[in-house]
């Protein structure tokens, strides 16, 4: 079965807003998927369903073998250990160094202390931050902060990396740097799902593109572009 699968998923927020309608989607292990669409189309909601920050109103969500839609709260941590999540605003702890930020995530899942230095170093090398291990987040550029947060997401060696607008706060060059990093991580076997508004990177990379509009999947292309070609409209 696919690594990630949504079947007939509806998400209705208590405010009455319909975030997702009848979304079905499956992602195989090792895929790289861009989630595109206008603001409010439901991209972030879809990611949140995957790491069970939200539960679907209707439908089924399977991630890495977990039936996420009916997971009890006590089981959520075990699902989350299969996933790494990266955000637009990095969510680094300001009072800890890069090393400590990554180690903190490893500690939080009960990694034996003697494994931690090696794991942290490996993660920092992967993102090219091994020289900045002792820096505090405020001493880093935006791109470096995002790389630190990617290192934290990957330290526990998850099967899936979810990235919610990871380049939203970055200039074009840095955005490109982050996306190629995610692409490299994908080549090592990690499944990557990334929401984005960045037309350039989507059009250059030509990976699978899933477009959401008003909570519905309106396009799912294997070698997609950011927007549907004019001829098809």
């Amino acid at each position: 079965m696919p690594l990630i699968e949504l079947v007939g998923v509806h998400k209705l927020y208590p405010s009455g807003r319909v975030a997702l309608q009848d979304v079905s989607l499956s992602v195989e292990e090792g895929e790289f998927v861009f989630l595109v669409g206008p603001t409010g189309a439901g991209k972030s909601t879809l990611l949140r369903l995957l790491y069970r920050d939200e539960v679907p109103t209707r439908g089924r969500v399977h991630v890495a073998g977990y039936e996420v839609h009916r997971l009890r709260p006590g089981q959520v941590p075990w699902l989350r250990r299969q996933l790494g999540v990266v955000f637009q605003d990095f969510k680094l702890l300001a009072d800890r160094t890069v090393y400590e930020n990554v180690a903190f995530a490893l500690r939080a899942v009960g990694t034996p202390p003697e494994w931690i230095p090696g794991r942290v170093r490996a993660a920092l090398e992967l993102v090219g931050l091994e020289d900045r291990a002792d820096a505090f987040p405020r001493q880093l550029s935006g791109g470096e902060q995002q790389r630190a947060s990617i290192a934290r997401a990957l330290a526990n060696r998850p099967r899936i990396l979810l990235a919610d607008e990871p380049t939203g706060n970055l200039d074009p060059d840095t955005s490109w740097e982050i996306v190629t990093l995610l692409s490299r991580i994908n080549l090592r076997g990690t499944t990557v799902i990334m929401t984005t508004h960045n037309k350039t990177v989507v059009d250059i990379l030509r990976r699978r593109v899933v477009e959401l509009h008003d909570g519905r999947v309106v396009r799912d292309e294997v070698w997609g572009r950011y927007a549907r070609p004019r001829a098809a409209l």
Partner: protein
Amino acid sequence: MRGPARLSEPSTAVPEGIPQARPHLRAVLSSAAYLTGEGAVGFWRNGLMSMAAVSAIVAALLAFGGAVVSLWNLEALALRVEAQLVAVAYLREDLSPAQREAARRAAAAIPEVRAVSFVPREQALRRLEEALGGVELAAAVSKNPLPDTLEVYPNRAQDLPRVAEALRSVPYVADVTHGGDATERVLALTRLVRGAGAAVTLAMGAVSVVVSANALRLTVLARKEEVEIMRLVGATSWFVRWPFLVEGLLQGLVAAACASAFWTAFYPWAVARLQQAWPFLPVLPTLRVVPLLVAWLVAAGAFVGLLGAAVSLRRFLAK
């Protein structure tokens, strides 16, 4: 995994074959040590916040200690007053020593009776003389008009009416008195004092918990981001909770130490002052109060710190 048949099964939502990471004992111990350290570090790192929380708990524990000390002293006072409640049995005149002894034995055999003392009529007269301020009554009357009496002390003050009733059927007893209404009034007063003392103490305890929970909520809020990230990367609820519980416990214990130090110094001083001012007022001695009070404060501090932390964490872990 798909299909309606699968859906109706009451199976767990967790896949088979994926380890639930039930960690080894060594890993658990290492985590526990780490988390305890994190809690202690948090206590120092959030210096000002901890100070604020500790001060709030100290204030609450001082009030709680005051309520406890007052309760104990009022209780002692009530017991002292009640111990003076006595039933008096007047014996018939001209009894032989053997008959008097039989009456005393019969009175002592009543189940609710703690002690019986025989007061000969001569002693009763002397007491009366003293009570009247040293008047020479013996010289004024040709014959001592007072009877021999038995003073009968009940186990508990509220047993007094029953003891008095039982005394009436003791042989050679002519009459019985137990203060009647006065006894009832004393008992009502001691009941009121006990009830009010206990209510105030409980209220102070509840106030301590509320104050501490609010103070500790600040600590939790200050570390909201850490909690979010821990939960995001898959920390279990207990892993998230533990450092805060340690921190709450530490804050409660430090506060208890401060409050204990205060009461250890203040109580002897207050007792000395009170006894100077009102020598007749019975006050519990320091050694009977302070060790027990310290134990209570430490227990209350620990309880309040843990409960406060748990309460303020609840909404973070609700999701």
